């Protein structure tokens, strides 16, 4: 493998560091119009009317669109289709789009937008999980305020709990998290001939956007083309939401017959786009006298906000992962995705699992503390090994590096000599160590398996360069680079000759979303399929050129073909092979279509092979707490990750560093606040506090490779995992330093001192 496993430079790095990369707002079209959005000022109201007359009379204004102008179906196509492109009948959250103002300039659109009058009759909003599930709660969604619910029943948890030696019961709460990608949401919709529509924009899931645009303007999918522009970060925040923006822009472009740019300001991006779901987790864990888990009963609630969007699938992943990577024969997990009158929540790196991981990894630490067991040992005792049975009774049959991640992280962080019980800590500055262990089902799993396939188109050009179109996107995570590495080695081309281009729905069929840490695994596999089809053709021409008789007598590696029996003899460059390929009139293109390994799920019991493979990690956080101010510094986080195979170790480390810092923000400072009427209070970076480089701890990444036999070169997927277990590692470290257990994130000095 000449490039797989090597830290080759990123394909997109040079342009990005030089500022050459162009994001959607950098593009224009002649005759372009600008759109801005009129938003609901109320969290919940009956919509009686929208007066657009004054706005329409303003200079430069071309149109003011409301729900009546939606040419297709006024519903964003996701799971339940309950979210309209533009509000109709009701306003369901503060910031919901009500109307679009289209004008010759952005400034003119803004000025007119202030004059659109929304006539709405306020209703009493439901603003939290606890309010939504209260018995006498007003009903804002069906008769139980519940978008979806799941059960996992393994064995008999109630009976096992009765027999447990120790029972631990705790409640944990987690806040919103805003993605804070550098590039806000934005698109340009460009109407074409014969009623076609092209949309350019920043996004994670061009095929979701394809569905949305076709549905919004009511045209066939073969007239819709979605082109992903260089995307300045997603983290899950550009999974479902670009469908809303693109649908709206397409409606406006179709109506006016001109290109329409709709790019969000930061404040409206924060107020209107999806977030991580707030969570409420009730844990009840029974153990034997040694701390072995014998029963688990878990209730998990997430705040879905005003529309269901991705809540059902986010909830499913969280439900499956609710106990963490621990063996237990008797488990009962019940989960609820509830409706409130707040911004709809969606995907965010970890997808419903950081919430339960915070709860699970905190309670296991609490158990260890009460039973006086080293927090590391309790994880060794209960954690998954090959042969373990998961909460859904899936047997982990391979590629399980959890124990090795514990060992390697512990060694690197010097756990043995540094860890001491909280009772031994003294003084006004105290240090603490905290650990978390995490497992993560790669890909869409049984919950989304109908979408779990991807396409690739691979073409060897006449000059020997290789063009690959893929169905997953580059959004800064390094997909184009890693996939080029896989394609190069699979084909025998050199890395430099392979170009994996940004996603365009005109190039490959629907490949599902770019989520769930699935891209390296899924697109990697589909590239390998395409390469496997093309490679024999190359060997065939190489054989003739080398004067061999059989195809299997030649080898092709890193852009050169040579005879196996004479490896140091004549070599033929890929470019010459390509020319010959064309001269022989052999098909220079191939399609890869990869279907994920099977997974299964029983609707009533939740039992089955939930995901085809799991990734694992151990985080060890080291904190220093100022006992007088409650301020603390995260000094170091050691993170050992099993991702099967690091196709590009430097990018793996990059993912670990970025994800860890994002997890630290979630743990220590980030939260969204609303007032008593449901108005979001901190929709700007002055008030939504993110960590800066000055807050960044030393991050110590460790790569552990337990290969997965179906992965491309053994790779699984792991992009989300670095964020997921950071919060409990820090909370456990804070407890270890101070003896103060924080069960509601974020961990703040005020909470440590009990002065909220």
């Amino acid at each position, binding site marked *: 493998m000449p490039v797989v496993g090597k830290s080759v430079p990123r394909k997109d790095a040079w342009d990005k560091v030089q500022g050459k990369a162009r994001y959607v707002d950098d593009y224009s079209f002649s005759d372009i119009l600008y759109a801005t959005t009129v938003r609901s000022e109320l969290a919940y109201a009956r919509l009686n009317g929208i007066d657009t007359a004054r706005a329409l009379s303003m200079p430069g204004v071309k149109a003011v669109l409301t729900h009546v102008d939606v040419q297709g179906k006024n519903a964003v196509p996701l799971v339940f289709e309950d979210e309209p492109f533009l509000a109709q009948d009701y306003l369901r959250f503060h910031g919901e789009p009500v109307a679009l103002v289209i004008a010759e300039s952005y400034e003119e659109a803004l000025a007119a937008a202030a004059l659109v009058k929304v006539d709405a009759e306020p209703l009493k909003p439901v603003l939290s999980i606890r309010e939504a599930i209260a018995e006498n709660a007003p009903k804002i969604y069906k008769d139980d305020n519940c978008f979806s619910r799941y059960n996992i029943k393994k064995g008999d948890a109630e009976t096992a709990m009765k027999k447990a030696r120790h029972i631990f019961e705790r409640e944990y709460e987690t806040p919103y998290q805003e993605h804070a990608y550098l590039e806000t949401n934005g698109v340009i919709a460009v109407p074409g001939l014969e009623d076609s529509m092209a949309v350019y924009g920043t996004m994670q899931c061009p095929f979701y956007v394809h569905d949305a645009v076709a549905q919004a303007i009511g045209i066939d999918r073969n007239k819709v083309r979605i082109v992903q522009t260089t995307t300045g970060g997603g983290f899950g925040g550009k999974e479902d939401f670009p469908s809303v923006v693109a649908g709206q822009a397409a409606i406006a472009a179709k109506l006016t017959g001109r290109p329409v740019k709709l790019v969000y300001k930061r404040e409206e991006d924060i107020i209107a786009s999806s977030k991580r779901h707030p969570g409420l987790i009730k844990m009840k864990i029974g153990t034997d006298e040694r701390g072995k888990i014998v029963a688990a009963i878990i209730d998990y609630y997430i705040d879905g906000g005003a529309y269901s969007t991705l809540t059902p699938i986010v909830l499913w992943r969280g439900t499956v992962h609710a106990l963490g990577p621990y063996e237990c024969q008797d488990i009962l997990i019940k989960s609820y995705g509830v409706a409130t009158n707040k911004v709809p929540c969606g995907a965010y790196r970890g997808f419903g699992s950081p919430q339960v991981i915070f709860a699970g990894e905190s309670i296991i630490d609490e158990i260890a503390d009460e039973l006086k067991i080293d927090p590391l040992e309790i994880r060794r005792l209960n954690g998954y090994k090959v042969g373990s049975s998961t909460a859904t009774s899936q047997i982990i049959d391979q590629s399980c590096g959890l124990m090795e991640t514990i060992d390697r992280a512990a060694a690197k962080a010097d756990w043995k000599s540094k860890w001491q019980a909280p009772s031994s800590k003294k003084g006004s500055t105290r240090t603490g160590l905290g650990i978390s262990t995490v497992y993560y089902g790669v890909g869409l799993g049984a919950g989304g398996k109908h979408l779990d396939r991807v396409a690739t188109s691979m073409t060897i050009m006449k000059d020997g360069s290789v063009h690959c179109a893929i169905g997953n996107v580059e959004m800064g995570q390094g997909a184009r680079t890693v996939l080029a590495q896989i394609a190069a080695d699979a084909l025998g081309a050199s890395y430099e000759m392979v170009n994996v281009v940004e996603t365009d729905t005109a190039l490959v069929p629907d490949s599902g979303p770019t989520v769930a840490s699935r891209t390296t695994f899924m697109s990697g596999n589909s590239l390998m399929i395409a390469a496997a089809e093309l490679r024999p053709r190359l060997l065939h021409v190489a054989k003739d050129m080398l004067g061999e008789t059989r195809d299997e007598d030649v080898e092709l590696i890193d852009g050169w073909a040579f005879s196996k029996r004479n490896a140091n003899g004549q070599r033929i460059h890929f470019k010459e092979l390509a020319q010959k390929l064309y001269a022989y009139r052999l098909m220079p293109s191939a399609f890869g279509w990869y279907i994920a390994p099977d997974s299964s799920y029983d609707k009533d019991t939740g039992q089955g092979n939930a995901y085809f493979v799991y990734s694992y990690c151990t985080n060890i956080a080291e904190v220093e707490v100022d006992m007088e101010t409650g301020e603390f510094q995260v000094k170091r986080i050691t993170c050992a990750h099993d991702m099967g195979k690091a196709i590009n170790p430097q990018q793996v480390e990059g993912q670990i560093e970025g994800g860890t810092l994002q997890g630290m923000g979630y743990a220590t400072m980030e939260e969204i606040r609303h007032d008593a009427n449901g108005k979001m209070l901190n929709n700007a970076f002055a008030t939504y*506090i993110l960590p800066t*480089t000055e807050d960044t701890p030393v991050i110590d990444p460790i790569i552990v490779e337990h290969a997965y036999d179906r992965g491309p070169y053994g790779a699984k997927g792991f992009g989300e995992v670095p964020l997921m277990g950071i919060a409990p590692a820090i909370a456990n470290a804070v407890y270890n330093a101070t003896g103060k257990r924080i069960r509601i994130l974020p961990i703040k000095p005020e909470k440590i001192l009990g002065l909220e």
Partner: protein
Amino acid sequence: MINQISFFKPDSVIQACEILARENNSLPVAGGTDLIVKIRNGMFPQTTAFVDLSSLPLRFIRETDGQIEIGSGCTMTEVIENPLVCKHFPTLTKAASTVGALQIRNLATIGGNSANSSPAGDTIPAMFALEASIKIRSKSGLRTVKIDQFFTGPGKNVLQRGEIIESFLLPKRETRGVFLKLGERKAHAISKINLALATWTESGKAKFRVAMGSVAPTVIRAPEVEKLLESSSQPFSDEVIAEAASLATKAARPISDVRSSQAYRKQMAGVLMKRAMNAF
């Protein structure tokens, strides 16, 4: 209508004052680090004109009869790097160096910090502790206001239409001091609470000034603490330090807001006081 804002770049301080007096709803702009954010957020929608102060001769730090005068147009970086300030007023140097982060400090002015009049403005407690006066210029002349007479509420001060801050006058003496701040993160953090302490010797006696921010509608001094310190012998005993801390906590009258709670701020007033004293 679209908000059209005129932009004036006057040639002299007097001309700036004239334009500000003449143009209804005009605002002076220095570094713009407060103002531009506020305008973008829809505050001051009536604004019709900006008067740019950044190229006026307001960027000086000089000695004038027993005082050190700091021009309002000095950026935080200029203040931090100035040897006169560093030698005489370490409290101010420290306060200015906690503002925002480097990019902000290169733009943000010392005049803008006071004129903006946030109770959390970081250089303000230092100005209190150093007994600064503010020289206010208008087209009809000059007036000087003591710093503790300047602020009238959050975001409010005694400046009238057509008036700008020309400079800060600080009595020239060698002081020692500290500035302490608690924020939500390590950089770009608005103070949850801050505290400045300055001390110097006057006629053989130690003088102390203590001021705190974000604990009241304006920055406040803690005169009881100052009295206690001035009447106690140094090095301070643990009892005096504890007493000073408890007086600082009593002096603080904070509220709860998005950044922190009342209870935390009150307790931290004492902690910062203690730390300030221990920093000597």
